[in-house]
Each structure stands twice: as C-alpha cells, then as structure tokens.
C-alpha cells in the first residue's frame, strides 16, 4: 500500500521577489507531486509604483530584490527610455554594463556557495562567499553601498566611475580569476559532485520551452537565449563575449553554465573598462510623454521584464514587473517530481531561488499532520547522501 507523505517547504521564504512554499508529496523516497504556493512576500509593488513619480520608481524597483538589485532598475530605465525614446550617453551605457556584470558575479558566487552547502560541501560555501566579499567592496567603492547601489537613472547613471577606481577594480578581477579556476576544477573534476548532480532534476528542452523558463535554467537545457545577445541593451553589443549553453538540463549543467558565465562577466567588465569613453553620464530627462514602453534585461537568474504605461503625468498608470524566477520556479513542478527526497533540496535550489526556504522545511505526515522532519533534516539528508557517495567512490572526506 502506498503511503503518501506531505512535506511542506517554506512557508515564508524570501526568494528574491517571489516567495514560495513547496508542498512535496512523497511516497517512500520518491517525490510524486509538488504544489507551489507563493505570495508571502507580496508587497504590492506594482500598485505602489503607480503612486510614485518616475524617478522614485527606480528606488522602489531596486528593492524588489536584494541580489539582483540592479537588474530591476535597469529593466525599468530601459522601459522608460523605450517609452520616451531617450538617447543615453555612451559612458552611462558602459557604466551600467559594468555594474550589471559585477552583480552577476556576486550573484553566481552566492548561488554556488549555497548549492555547495545543500549538498554538504560547506567549504564551498565559505570559499565562494569569501571571494564574493571583494566584489561587494568594489560596489561600496564605486556606489557607496554594498547592496542597493542606486546607480540607475532614467537617461543615464547617477554616479561616475572615477579613474583611480578603475585600476583597483581591475586588480580585484585579476585576483578573482584564480578563484573561479578553483571552483571550476572543484566542480568539474570531483567525482562525488558529478555523482550528486549529474542526471538529477532534469528539465528537458521541450519542457523548458513549454514552461517558458529563462536565464541559466533555460540555457542549461539547450535553449540559446540571452537578452544581452538577442536584444542588446547597455554596452553588450560593443564588447565580445559568448552565450554559455549546455545540453543536459540537469543540475550539473546549470552549475557549469553559471561557473562559465563568471569568466564571461569578468571579460565583459575588463573590456568595458578599456573601451569606456569619456563624457556625459546623464541625458537630463525632463518630461515623460504618454505612451508605453517595454524593457527587459538579463538578470543573473534570467530575463527580467518591465512594462510601463504613462499618460503624460509624472506617474506611471501601470507598471508590470515580471521577475525571472516567476517562470523558473514554476518549472520545479516537473524538475523535482520523480526524484528522490534527498535530491529535492538541491533540485529546488538549482533554479537559484533563495536559501531561506530550505532552511525552514518541515516534513509532515499527511495523515496525522505531525511533524516528523524539519528543514535542516532535509539538508542533512542531502549531505549524508554525499558522504555515502564519498565512501563508495573512495574519496577521503
């Protein structure tokens, strides 16, 4: 007789913009169904946006998400510039690109660390976050804050990058490169990580198309989409770089995509620093005409989409925001079903939502509704599996 057990994961889980609560239905070890509930972090930003004037909205959308806190303002200013047909000074485009790529580095390192934590490599967590700190220092040097940089502005950027800062930034990137090499080696050559991540949580190409996923999640499933290439914004068409695509669709592929993207980001920043022209950084926009505009950017997690409609006043009539995880998280429904419980933590984390959900998992018996397992046990389960595999493969731990 099959005995279905319900495992709620969540509930208030501060994923970037879309909090979520997973109800996992398991039969023995196997996940048979999953139900995703979101809305715990709903703040009504789309409605709030209608009560702010166009410049204030930049700060509001920055606070949608702490990790991609430049992607949302970037998409928003792109939408406004599309609406009002504004020409942005070239130097501003380069500065925007540099900030966006620095953010991608810090976001991917953050994910890498947490993924390492979930499968029982706490060392990876500590190393990844250690190498993330210098990037945050660079943010502080350039913008004045470690997070929430407030660099974007309709028609330009708020602050310039000083000449004396450029050499420090270049030095930081040089120091980062060996660390990325180390991570690449650690992931690609480690038999245990391969055994843990290969063939787990697969999202096939067709499923990826059906669920319309974006970003690294789609690129790991063999779909070659990247807004930076497809619809270039900022200075992405002025530098040379590659879109990283993997075919397998499993978690290993998603990890590889993110690690290889770190190299591309470092290269993009270096090229931007070299090619950045001197000049104005702001177009001094005065009025916003009526009309509608669409802006989208490639956030670290995928396409971030903003639609703004103006009626000629100084506030938006409608501001629609679609964050990348909105599409990606929904696809967990196919990626996690069929896998085992010990793989659930890493599968749900592979689309790069946030860690806090998995810190508060609770396993409930469906019939008695009694708590039989809490969140950390699920991570422990995942970590124990790694230990077992280490013994089988014969690695020293």
């Amino acid at each position, binding site marked *: 007789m099959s005995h279905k057990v319900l495992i709620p994961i969540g509930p208030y889980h501060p994923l970037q913009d879309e909090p979520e609560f997973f109800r996992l239905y398991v039969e023995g070890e196997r996940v048979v169904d999953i139900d995703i509930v979101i809305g715990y972090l709903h703040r009504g930003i789309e409605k709030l946006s209608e009560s702010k004037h166009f410049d204030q909205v930049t700060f509001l959308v920055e606070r949608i998400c702490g990790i991609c806190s430049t992607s949302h303002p970037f998409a928003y200013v792109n939408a406004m510039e599309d609406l009002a047909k504004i020409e942005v000074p070239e130097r501003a485009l380069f500065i925007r690109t540099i900030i966006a790529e620095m953010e991608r580095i810090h976001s991917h390192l953050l994910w890498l660390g947490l993924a390492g934590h979930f499968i029982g490599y706490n060392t990876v967590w500590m190393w990844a976050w250690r190498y993330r*700190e210098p990037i945050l220092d660079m943010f502080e040097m350039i913008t004045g804050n470690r997070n929430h940089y407030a660099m974007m502005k309709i028609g330009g950027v708020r602050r310039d990058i000083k000449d004396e800062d450029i050499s420090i930034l270049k030095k930081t990137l040089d120091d980062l490169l060996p660390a990325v090499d180390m991570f690449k080696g650690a992931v690609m050559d480690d038999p245990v990580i391969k055994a843990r991540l290969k063939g787990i949580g697969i999202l096939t190409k067709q499923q990826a198309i059906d669920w319309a996923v974006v970003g690294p999640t789609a690129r790991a499933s063999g779909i070659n989409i990247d807004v930076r290439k497809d619809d270039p914004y900022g200075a992405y068409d002025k530098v040379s770089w590659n879109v990283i695509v993997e075919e397998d669709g499993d978690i290993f592929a998603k990890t590889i995509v993110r690690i290889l993207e770190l190299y591309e980001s470092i290269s993009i920043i270096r090229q931007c620093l070299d090619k950045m022209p001197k000049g104005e950084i702001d177009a001094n926009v005065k009025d916003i005409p009526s009309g509608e505009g669409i802006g989208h950017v490639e956030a670290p997690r995928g396409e971030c989409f903003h639609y703004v409609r103006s009626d000629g006043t100084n506030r938006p009539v409608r501001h629609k925001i679609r964050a990348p995880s909105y599409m990606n998280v929904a696809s967990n429904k196919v990626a996690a079903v069929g896998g085992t419980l010990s793989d659930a933590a890493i599968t749900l984390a592979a689309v790069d939502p946030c860690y806090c959900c998995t810190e508060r998992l609770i396993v409930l018996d469906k019939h008695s509704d009694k708590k039989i397992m809490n969140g950390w046990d699920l991570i422990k389960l995942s970590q124990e599996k790694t230990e077992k595999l280490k013994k089988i493969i014969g690695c020293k731990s």
Partner: protein
Amino acid sequence: MNLKLKALTKSLWVFHLCIGGSCNNCDIEILDLLTPRYDVERFGIMLIGSIRHADVLLITGSLSRKAAPRAKRLYEQMPKPGVVVAVGSCALGRGIFKDSYNTPCPLDELIPVDLYIPGCPPKPEAIIAGIVKLIKKVRGV
C-alpha cells in the same frame, strides 16, 4: 537582573525569520556574518533551524498580510526569556513599502521588539555593533 537572561548572552542561538515584504538583502547580510570575513560563530552566535531552541528571534522584512499570523505564532513558540531583534528599515517601519495594501502594520505593533538595527540593508558591521550593544545592555555593563 534576570539571571536566565544574563546566562543566555554567553552563546546566542538565533532563529532567523523573514516575515515577508523584504528584498532579501538583510537576509544575505545576516548569512554574510557567518562567512569568513565576519565569522560571528567564533563568539558562539549560531543560526539554528527551530524557534524552540532559539534565544534570539531575528526578524527582517516588512510584515505582509499572509505572513503576519505566522510571525505572531512563532513569537509565542519562542522560549522565554528571549530577545527579538529587528534588522533593516523594512522590519523597523516598513521602509519603502509603507503605503502598500499588503503591509498592514509595522512589526512592533504585532510583537515587542528589543533591538532595532536600521539600514537598507545594515552593513554586517552595523549588525555586529547592534548585537554587542544588546549583550552589554543585558549583562548590565
């Protein structure tokens, strides 16, 4: 001075709760405290997975409608004496989301808060400074 409360400052076990309406940045800065540069675990400060073992309830985010009852229940489940710490502008006074339809009230109208750490997000140094102030106050030095 409450002896139990004084003893509890030796090694703070922290339950971290994001009550919704946060951008996640405060949560990241809190995790940052555990990583090599700041490493507060040296001083016995540890994140734990259950409120029933916690000395400190650390709250981030502006209270959302859906999360409010859960926050209240968690506070009731916390062993007393314990302290409640609010981190970030949102937890202090809802921050930029003050006028939203989904953030009904500031946190300290729902549960009592002992320590407020402002900032959007507060830097890790600021959070450490806040915790030090709290420990000093509890110990009465």
